[in-house]
């Protein structure tokens, strides 16, 4: 599974297509991730977990 932030989703999608991974699925979280404190990072994890668990 590839994790990407909202700011880079379009780029990640384009790169996946270029590298012949058109069906690659992404876990998308709010930008940014780098430089966050623990509580903000926990928010990102909360965003990611449901996507990892699937419908």
């Amino acid at each position, binding site marked *: 599974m590839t994790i990407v932030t909202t700011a880079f989703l*379009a780029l990640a999608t*384009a*790169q996946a297509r*270029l590298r012949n991974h058109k069906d690659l699925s992404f876990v998308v979280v709010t930008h940014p991730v780098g430089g966050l404190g623990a509580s903000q990072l926990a928010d990102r994890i909360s965003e990611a977990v449901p996507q990892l668990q699937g419908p």
Partner: protein
Amino acid sequence: MSAQVIAVPDLTAQQWFSFAEQHGWSDGLPTLVPTVEAVEEFVEVTTGLPASMGPIVPSGVNADIRSLAANALMAGCSPSAFPVVLAALKAMLADEFNPLGVLATTHPCAPLILLSGRARDIAEVNSGSNCLGQGRRGNATIGRALQLILANLGGSRPGELDKATHGSPAKYTFCFGEDEQGSPWEPLSVRRGFAPGEPVVTVFAAEGPHNINDHGSTCGEQLLTTIAGTMATPGSNNFYLNGEHLLIFGPEHAETLARDGWDIDGVRQALHGLARISADFVSAGKRTELAARGIEPDSGWYKMAGGAECIQIAVAGGPGKHSVWIPTFGTSRCVSIVV
């Protein structure tokens, strides 16, 4: 993709500027009108070259020679310089240049085009005073042509697939020649295995130039101390990525070093040893990041990540006690090819 001929209404130069900008074909500066007749002038100078350069990243579009020529023309290139543009494009599409990374990164790198041997004559570029600045058509338009190709055919548009946080003025154009006559050493192209005089293009994924002012040093060893101190900066990608540095020595600094017996290998080794960063200037968080990459200080000092072989050297510029340090993206290697 094959070139499409688009019918454009009769426009003044000023109207064409707006028309091209509205269609997303401009870098913000005026472009020339790529008429069919003008494009054919460019195609004529490519006799013997392939009809396509292969897929242009990041779009993957397989652009034909007329599409490439139209962009070079729009940038203001002379037809005679078009083969240099094509060589630069081919070089930067090489895997070791890491074109997808270079074009997509948040880092402000631009494709720097360094010309050696007869490539400087073909392109009519400046390698002397103000060679990194304004004033010469070759310098101004060859880099711009490459950028228009990457944007208009490759899809590398700012904020879309080009995710540079700030970018750099170098992304408008970054092209110059080696001052081979003013250098006490062999040209970079010869050190990279090409014959003297052979027309060679070398591309780097480069930041803008950082000046190194040293009017005070009176010998080569002192000069290298200043240069190493300029290179040792914790905010550079070169600090933690195993990337290349490009040093452009002004002819006067180069002459001082050569006078004192310094050859290229000696300069590289000395700078690699001297370019150190005190751990006091590296934050706790950054130290943790570095440690995760296996980078630790030695007696309170960090070395720049790359080895001596990562320091590339050329001579260019005019009179004056200045040289230039150009850091790079890091996960990219310079590529040289014959025009």
